[in-house]
């Protein structure tokens, strides 16, 4: 089965607002795309449209949170992490307010809208802000789990969601640990460990099965369980990270930071080079910019050949 993580977000939130009356959902004229319209359908008095004014929306979110509300604020990742970056930093993260920024249409899989709408830097931006938790759920089940979790916390969070359908890698009964690496395949080859996040995880899992590698899905990019991650990494000679994000500042960088400080070893990545994307069908764009199963296999093979 497959589903867009944004749809899983809207469906989960539509359930939560029925019982949690402290939740207020904000949107910026994209509620049919971000799927907060599902909330509007069931509990219209808990949904407010801020219009096309993302910076203002983040400020309103801060004020609502400072008044006791649990706020979910949604727009495209480009206009949340990008346009409203400084409002998020200074009005939400710095005062550590209870705002969940659930940003959809992240990455190149936006497709036809092109580079202006393809946020490939948002993990880097949000990860670098103190107090901000960053989640990148990889399928509908991980998304539901993340949304249910952040609704219970009081901290600012950034949840990165996608436009396109993604294959399920978990099931309704999977035990998902948001902060630890979720090992989805144990391989006998201990030369390369695959660490993946978001839409790439379904592909990385296929590669792991095919090449007999171990693969773990990383849902929380910050703050993650560094001890669990270090222990996992210990058993492998090299690491390949996979993410639908720039190679600068995302999962690749975060893993390199950890590995360099603890047990240096070669780390390579399947990620977007330091370049803007372009318009095209999501599949064509992902392929052109190096985000397919074949690209993962290629990088793994390269690592195995080099070392």
């Amino acid at each position: 089965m497959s589903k867009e993580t944004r749809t899983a977000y809207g469906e989960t939130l539509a359930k939560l607002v029925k019982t949690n009356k402290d939740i207020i959902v904000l949107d910026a004229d994209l509620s049919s795309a971000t799927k907060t319209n599902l909330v509007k359908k069931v509990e219209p008095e808990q949904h407010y449209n801020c219009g096309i004014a993302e910076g203002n929306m983040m400020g309103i979110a801060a004020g609502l949170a400072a008044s006791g509300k649990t706020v979910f604020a949604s727009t495209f990742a480009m206009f949340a992490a990008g346009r409203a970056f400084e409002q998020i930093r200074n009005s939400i993260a710095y005062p550590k307010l209870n705002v969940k920024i659930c940003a959809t249409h992240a990455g190149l899989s936006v497709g036809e809208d092109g580079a202006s709408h393809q946020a490939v830097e948002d993990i880097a931006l949000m990860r670098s802000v103190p107090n901000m938790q960053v989640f990148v759920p990889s399928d509908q089940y991980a998304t539901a789990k993340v949304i249910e979790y952040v609704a219970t916390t009081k901290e600012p969070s950034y949840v990165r969601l996608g436009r396109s359908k993604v294959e399920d890698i978990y099931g309704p009964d999977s035990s998902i640990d948001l902060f630890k690496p979720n090992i989805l395949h144990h391989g006998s080859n201990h030369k390369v460990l695959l660490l993946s996040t978001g839409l790439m995880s379904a592909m990385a899992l296929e590669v792991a099965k095919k090449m007999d590698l171990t693969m773990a899905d990383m849902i929380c990019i910050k703050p993650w369980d560094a001890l669990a991650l270090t222990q996992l990494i210990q058993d492998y000679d090299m690491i390949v990270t996979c993410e639908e994000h720039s190679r600068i500042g995302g999962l690749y960088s975060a893993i390199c930071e950890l590995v360099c400080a603890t047990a240096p070893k070669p780390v390579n990545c399947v990620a977007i080079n330091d370049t803007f994307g372009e318009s095209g069908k999501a599949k064509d764009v992902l392929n052109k910019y190096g985000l397919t199963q074949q690209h993962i296999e290629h990088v793994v093979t390269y690592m195995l050949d080099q070392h």
Partner: protein
Amino acid sequence: MNNQKLAIHALNQRRTIVEMVHAAASGHPGGSLSATDILAMLYFEVMDITADNVKTIDRDRFVLSKGHASPALYAVLCEKGFLDHDQLVNGFRQIDTDFQGHPNMNEVDGVDMSTGSLGQGLSAAVGMALANKIDHKPYRVYALIGDGESEEGQIWEAAMAAAHYQLDNLCVIVDYNHLQIDGNVDEVIGPSPLDAKFKAFGFHVETVDGHDFDQLRAAFHQARLIKHQPTAIIAKTTKGKGVSFMEDNPSWHGSAPNDEQFEIAMRDLEGNHE
């Protein structure tokens, strides 16, 4: 140019818009069709843009601040003869082509600013108008914004700067079609009254029917005469104008017609000039 000729250009542009969005199965027909008559007027009568000067900055320039209406811009550039019709229709929103979903100034001659993130184009237009003042250049700058787009605070930051620097070489056109993605603008967040707002921000304001060439012509003419003040033309339009089933229907903001709908749309846009 007489109104009949302008109407023929506008009709051709509308057909190209529908063809592009249909071929790509993606794009924004509603806000492209509402802006088409404004663009026909600008490119065929108001602006001094020709095949000889299109690649230069020494001419009037146009910023499509509501960048999602790229089909409207590409279509008028095509109607001017700057772009190849078939390349455009087959390339729009496809991989490995120049015709990005939101226009990129480095890929298409005649696209004067890269846009797509609402609210940003008008600031760039202010910068261009300021540069023309600094360099004592006589060229004018036109910027088209959406009514929904006017909800962005940056629009009003730009407006304040334009009035402050007395940019009488800047003309903002608001495509006042009353719709944005989530519905009627007045129900989403309510930007009205736009004319009084622009006036309060120091603009000379003209309110016109955005599908009436006489009214558009008169407003652009007036804008040219006004000194020490930028002009805002509030153009009342119909989203989806010209295609029966798209008119005034918010669901055609960002969706493409299927084959059957495409046939109906093209029949709506037949005209009798061919």
